[in-house]
């Protein structure tokens, strides 16, 4: 069973943390991916550039609209993700607990819908 761990945190608060702390957290996240990989639970992961770098794309009545906002005002922004393979929700949750971002923000655990017909690549 695949789960997407969405890491949300307050970008402003994160920005105010010291450079060393941020580097340590990133390093910890990279270590986590290796630990997961060793147990064949790792599929993919990445931190994201700040929400201000994003564009929003909508297609309405065939017309594409690309804008830089407005964003829904929320305290926490999507900061990164881990795509993992876990045997059930409890295992996925126990991995989410180890995500460094959980200590300063929120990790949302979402089960994936398994569909057929997607291109496959060797990951497991």
């Amino acid at each position, binding site marked *: 069973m695949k789960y997407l761990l969405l890491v949300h945190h307050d970008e402003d608060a994160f920005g105010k943390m010291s450079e060393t702390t941020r580097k340590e957290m990133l390093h910890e996240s990279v270590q986590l991916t290796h630990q997961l990989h060793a147990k064949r639970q790792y599929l993919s992961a990445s931190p994201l550039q700040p929400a201000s770098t994003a564009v929003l794309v909508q297609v309405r009545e065939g017309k594409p609209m690309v804008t830089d906002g407005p964003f829904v005002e929320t305290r926490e922004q999507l900061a990164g993700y881990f795509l993992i393979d876990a*045997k059930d*929700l*409890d295992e996925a*949750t126990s991995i989410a607990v180890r995500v460094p971002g959980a200590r300063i923000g929120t990790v949302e*655990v979402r089960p994936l819908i398994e569909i057929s017909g997607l291109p496959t690549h060797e990951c497991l």
Partner: protein
Amino acid sequence: MSEVTDSKVRELVEEVYREESRRVLATLIRLLGDFDAAEEALHDAFAVAAEQWIRNGVPSNPRAWLVSTGRFKAIDGMRRRARFDASLTEHAKQLESALYPLEEPDDESIEDDRLRLIFTCCHPALAPEAQVAMTLREVCGLTTEEIARAFLAKPSTIAQRIVRAKGKIRTACIPYQVPSETDLPARLDAVLRVVYLVFNEGYSASSGGSLTRHDLSAEAIRLGRLLVELLPDPETMGLLALMLLHDSRRVARISATGELILLDDQDRSLWNRDQIIEGTILIERAFASNQVGPYTIQAAIAGVHAEAPQPAETNWAQIVALYDLLMQAGPSPVVELNRAVAVAMRDGPLAGLSLIDSILRRGELSNYHLAYAARADFYRRLGRTTEAKASYEQALGLTQQEPERRFLKRRLAELHDYG
């Protein structure tokens, strides 16, 4: 076979249903991996039992027979449906290979299944109200209508809650298992919280005219007994003791006209001695473990009240000491308020008054009617009628519960008569 034996067998099937259906369901959920499939299989198994037991007699181990029959029926049904839906063929095969060779489910694994069911229904990934509905439906076997009536909700609301919860268990893949040792304390807390919520919903209905809905309290006590039997943790015993001791006063707590009677004014001969004894033994067992938690301490407080033949003989010093312990275990303004009342009983109303005023000054409990009711009572006992009246009025403005309102109005009227 004669009609007499027929009806006897039918009675027996019903009896087996009452005693075994939850156990059989819990095992079928593990074997089939799905709540709905297990419920259907359970239903089918009992339908077959009603027929076959009349013809062939009752099997020596009805529980194992029902599990085997239910599982056979489920696979059979899946094979039949597989003729129209090829994806089911694989699933049926998988199930079969997982189920055979047919080993007799032993009693220990069946008891484990009951715990699995409880922990799954009370999984923190489900909303609290869904946990309650699932526990009452799946573990206690209440119907959706019964749950709706107990919670003054529409049956469709409860049904939807249960459907959503089952959907989440399926799609998010919530495991059907007893949590690992590391997770167990937190997960057990969640289970106990659900049981206590059910009890309180029955003991003091949060709204509406009737103050006790005993069915729910009885159901919670049954759940508590089951948990003590399956997982004899000190706090599980403490919670069961607490529920038993509260429930022992049920008859004495409400007058014939449905009025709330305070502890001091209750006819103590109406208290249920058996429940008090059972509760007291549980408290002793829990305290002997040296892992005393909030439920056990609250039970011990109720126990001190229970052992006083008259209100005047209550050991208030011991109650204050237990509240101190409770504040250490988990401080909260409500506990502090109750401690203030106990202090007032030990040292006089003036001591209680200063404690309550300091809680209210912090802005805590300023919307809690019982804080003002307690304050009013202290003023009344000090003979400060005007202040007592004002506090009773404040309390009255903060509660919707009819029996509580009538009680407060009665106290107000008494002050008008004598003040």
